[in-house]
């Protein structure tokens, strides 16, 4: 395992201080922090952040990024998430799409997309899941048929977060009905406003609109929007999921709730409440160090896939535990329209928390991948 206690350099700590100052100036005192589902979609905020060079930090400077290290990006991202800042607009593009484009995209795609992503002006969703393809992602049926100059796509994607707000999504689809289900898959970059594409809301448990159903009816995708190689979609998407895994978004989803509990009740805590906050903080302190160690190891060129899976598992379970423990020691009815921030956040968190161990791959599936890695039976 690559886990080693990790120090931050003075330069990294200075960066943190700058981000904190920015957030203190930007977020109003009564700011309601985003929980779990990534915070609010706020183009204005994304652009301001980009103006400081804090979007697409890890994108090389030649493509308009910051050329920063994984740890520098880690520091910025953890500050943003701890504050519950409204980063949803650029979040997927910068966390996931940019590294995928760097790894597999054509020169032309990199030159077109990456500077826009780094400017906080080009937003992406993920088009993986389908009604019949959840955990079993390789069974996707959305099909792209070759036509002159591109592909015609038909099928249905589901649970597509923020598709109603973003510009593009990366779609995993079948480009040949291969016998081996892992070949014959490709990734396409699809304009979410393309003719023939219909985005419809799927309402979340608490009534909110986060995810969507996206139906393709003969949607034309030009050849230059094929991401990577035709037929290499499975390989690309599985390496992409590894990036998704172990970052601070896997354990900071409910930090705003923990903080609000201390802000609003800290002075009158009883011992059970003190112990709950103590425990939640101790675990967070530890998990953050694990995640930071993963980031540092990436800097040295490691590929800590198993470690990343372990951090995601510990982190997401931790997030759920915090919600449970806080509501337990708060010991009050949950009032979604309550006067206090803590109550309102708790109402949201209780209904959001089950998703922490589903999105980006369920606990069960994640564990079987991690276990294979641990026992050396790598695929």
């Amino acid at each position, binding site marked *: 395992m690559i886990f080693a206690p990790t120090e931050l350099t003075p330069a990294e700590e200075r960066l943190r201080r700058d981000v904190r100052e920015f957030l203190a100036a930007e977020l109003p005192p009564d700011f309601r922090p985003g929980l779990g589902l990534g915070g609010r979609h706020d183009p204005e905020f994304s652009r301001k952040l980009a103006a400081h060079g804090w979007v697409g930090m890890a994108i090389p400077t030649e493509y308009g990024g910051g050329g920063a290290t994984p740890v520098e990006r880690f520091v910025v991202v953890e500050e943003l998430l701890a504050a519950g800042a409204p980063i949803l607009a650029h979040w997927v593009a910068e966390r996931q799409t940019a590294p995928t484009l760097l790894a597999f995209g054509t020169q032309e795609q990199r030159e077109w997309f990456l500077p826009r992503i780094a400017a906080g002006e080009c937003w992406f969703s993920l088009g993986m*899941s389908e009604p*019949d*393809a*959840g*955990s*079993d992602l390789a*069974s996707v049926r959305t099909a792209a048929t070759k036509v002159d100059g591109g592909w015609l796509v038909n099928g249905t994607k*589901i*649970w597509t977060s923020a598709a109603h707000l973003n510009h593009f999504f990366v779609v995993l689809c079948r480009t040949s009905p291969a016998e081996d289900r892992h070949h014959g898959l490709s990734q396409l970059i699809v304009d979410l406003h393309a003719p023939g594409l219909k985005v419809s809301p*799927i*309402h*979340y*448990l*608490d*009534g909110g609109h986060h*995810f969507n159903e996206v139906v393709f009816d003969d949607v034309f995708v030009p050849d230059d929007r094929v991401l990577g190689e035709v037929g290499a979609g499975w390989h690309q998407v599985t390496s992409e999921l590894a990036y998704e895994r172990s970052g601070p978004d896997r354990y900071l989803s409910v930090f705003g709730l923990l903080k609000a509990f201390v802000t609003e009740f800290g002075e009158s805590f009883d011992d*059970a409440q003190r112990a709950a906050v103590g425990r939640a903080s101790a675990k967070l302190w530890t998990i953050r160090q694990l995640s930071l160690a993963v980031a540092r190891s990436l800097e040295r060129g490691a590929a800590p896939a198993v470690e990343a899976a372990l951090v995601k598992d510990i982190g997401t379970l931790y997030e*759920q535990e915090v919600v*449970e423990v806080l*509501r*337990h*020691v708060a*010991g*009050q*009815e*949950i*009032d*979604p*329209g309550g006067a206090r921030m803590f109550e309102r956040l708790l*109402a949201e968190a*209780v*209904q959001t928390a*089950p*998703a922490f*161990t*589903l*999105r980006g791959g*369920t*606990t*069960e599936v994640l*564990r079987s991948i991690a276990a294979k890695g641990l026992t050396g039976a790598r695929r």
Partner: protein
Amino acid sequence: MSRGDTELVAEAVGELLRGRCTQETVAAAERTGWAPELWAGLAEGGFPWISVPEERGGVGGTVAEACAVLEQVGRYAAPLPVAETGLLAGWMSASAGLDVPAGPVTTAPTARSVDAPATVTVQRTSSGWAASGRAARVPWAREASRVVLLADSPDGLQVISLDPATAHIEPGVNLAGEPRDTVHLDDVAVDAVAEAPAGVDHDALLLRGALSRAALIAGAAGRVLDITVTYTNERRQFGRPVARFQAVAAHLVKLAEQTEAVRMAARVAAANGGTASGPWFLDVAAAKTVASEAAGLVAAAAHQATGAMGMTREYELGQLTRRLWSWREEYGGELLWSTRLGAALADAGADALWPAIARGAVA
């Protein structure tokens, strides 16, 4: 009343709700705050007034039968103040010698223990009585024909019954969108006031309320189990039903265990029901502790097993889990009840511990 009667009542109300309390009925009530036709159906059968004596406007019957009805109400997520109308407000009114009116009646605790001052006070005026203060999180106060509350007065604790039209009602909801309103009383004339008799006080209301929520949770958990078993047997991934994966099967087993446990706890407490003190306190405190804890475990296991589908508004699971997450805190969560139970057991001494546990249902 025998066990057979309890089952008959459960079957009758279950059949009615199965037909009339659909997912759409519940969703519609969440938007409008009320399900008038569903209420009319239940009222016609007399179900909300079970356990309230006939001479006070009820239909008679036992606490166990009332709880059997509540299990079905929980099972179908019926958005109605059934617990309040009979077991809680109906009981308080009838015990104090006040008549139980037609229509939905509601109540909520105005203090968490007999030693605490009530948040509502009532005083004699030249023409009668006037009440002041506020009652928080009162179920469906906006739709009730009466709000029945425990109020402090210079002459001791009173049961007051008032017309909500005389109060200022501030709307609120729980996580399931069920109305939980705040009733503000600003020197409001009250026409029905009676001294709270022995056995009717804040502790007794809290106890009955806790029992009602345990029964509701038991019912909802049973339905969550059924939905989840069905879904995971129909949902196929990797060429087989997901229920066949060991990890998913483990969730189903946990769901079944928790559901049976909470059902047992709620039913034993209900069967022993009636008196506010003595062993019944231990039963209800234990039942609500178990039920509130089970509610969270059941919801978590069901959501994990049903994946993203379970997290949508359209799918019926959420109607039930949002209720489980609400009801577990109402009338005290597991922290309150386990603390009270532990305190009572410690006070009684070590030698009384095993005898307190090794008791059967009286039925």
